[in-house]
């Protein structure tokens, strides 16, 4: 009985190995598939401005590219209201430049950039469409 059980167990073990050998893909015997990335290299370009160490005590401006009633920007204003509140709850000493105090449009560009920069922010949240 014991010998029969051993032989049966051996046969059962051998069968999966045989089945695997028949269905083995050419790439890898243990079913793993290794594929190459299509992403190309790009030339080393510009670095963005250095990031902030922390948001504690920082002045953060929120700029909205459209007035709250303009559809293409969605309800970005509502999101900004929430984010401003969450920032003040999480980080102490945060100063906010509210989006309504900045030009709510994206042209002319220099006017918008100058207005934002004039508030002397440590960081800017840009959004929400266009």
């Amino acid at each position, binding site marked *: 009985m014991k010998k029969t059980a051993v032989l049966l167990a051996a046969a059962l073990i051998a069968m999966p190995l045989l089945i695997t050998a028949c269905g083995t893909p050419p790439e890898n015997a243990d079913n793993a598939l290794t594929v190459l990335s299509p*992403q190309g290299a790009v*030339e080393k370009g510009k670095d963005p401005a250095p990031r902030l160490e922390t948001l504690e005590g920082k002045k953060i401006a929120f700029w909205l590219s459209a007035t709250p009633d303009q*559809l293409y920007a969605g309800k970005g204003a509502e*999101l900004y209201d929430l984010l401003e509140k969450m920032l003040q709850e999480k980080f102490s000493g945060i100063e906010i430049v509210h989006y309504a105090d900045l030009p709510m449009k994206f042209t002319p560009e220099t006017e918008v950039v100058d207005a934002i920069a004039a508030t002397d922010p440590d960081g*800017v949240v840009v959004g929400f469409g266009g």
Partner: protein
Amino acid sequence: MGSIAIALEEKGIPTVTLYNQRHEKRFMGTILQKGYVDYPAINFDEYETFTSEGIRALAPEAFDFMVEGLTTWTPPYLKPEGDRWVPKESAFTYSGDSYQESLDLFNRSYLEMGWGDGLPLMPPTRERVDALLRATPVSAETVIGRWGPSNAYFTAEKIAVAAAMAGARPEYMPVIIAALEAVTSSPWDAFFPVMRSAVPLIIVNGPYAGEIGINSSSNAFGPNPAYPANGAIGRAVNLALAAIPGNGRGIKPSNLAGNPASYAGIVVAEAEGVISLTPGWDPVSVQMGYPAGTNLVTVMGVDQMDMSVLGSIDNIAACVAPNRDIWPGNRKMWEAQYAGALVITEMQIVIDGQMGGKTKADYARELWESARFPVDEFRDLILRSEFGEPVEPSGFVKSLLEEPDVVKKGVPVAAGPDRFLVLVAGGH
């Protein structure tokens, strides 16, 4: 929006951008075109951003990304290496309980990473990519061209990866490489791909087309099991153009309705056997200045196809509308730009060409004369700002509208008949 973010960064002010998804392609295209490898930006499903409920749901994710973007963010997919940025991961391994499961995992993963067109991909294994590379005389590192918002390097190896994904055979590689060399010779435009969906029309001349089975006859622009090359070549080119450039996760699809030719492309061989029997019907390769019999690939960006079955040139001409997004800004561009390709079927050339004595040049002239628009209709279509406001013509457009021929007959869509390519394909 992208320009404003970058202008602030260049003043030394760190920024992070949150936006709704419809602006993704243009926004990231602008960022990358300004020479940045990547930038901290996150976008949200457009319809979620239209409701207060949707905004409340995405606010936590937006907050976390906003904090990361201003403090710890670094490019997630690329790393610096010498004078370039290269992918952090050059290969991916998928392990399932079976080979089939591994294949499924690979397909899902590549789609999640933005690589693919939604149809099943063939796995670009080292073995398959090497087999494709052996079919070309160029080395794997050869740069065929540079293209895309970040001017990515289209090496022979990366093209072979895209070709493998498309299911292309090794013998298709010379055509795929030639087509991509042609496309990458023209600079990428940040605005145009957002508003239009141009796809390369790839015309193949010469005996090699027949050797590898590119269709020039029945259902030339559609699927034909007897001619598998057309679709695989077109798909390889489209996948390469979408996946190789970008910031590590490909270039996003068009914002608007899109183009069905983005799946299998538009690839056709010219029916040179038929046209060689008919005077005045030189193949496109000869029209391009090459000797007859040259193996040549000619590429033209197209965003629409119209067919007139047993119709007239007037029918076709009515479909060739002036396009504000690509209307040339100066006379040099006007005279250099092609307006389209006119495809004449083999049956039509027998009837009109061999029996009627009509030539390619006759067809081109007839189309050029017909594809004209009244000046006031042109003003309404073309002389508009991005926001639809009328603008006064100036410079080249002003002088064009004052030409006597234009005043009398209307504005042509092309500078002359030779701005239409005429080729023969399709239809016994």
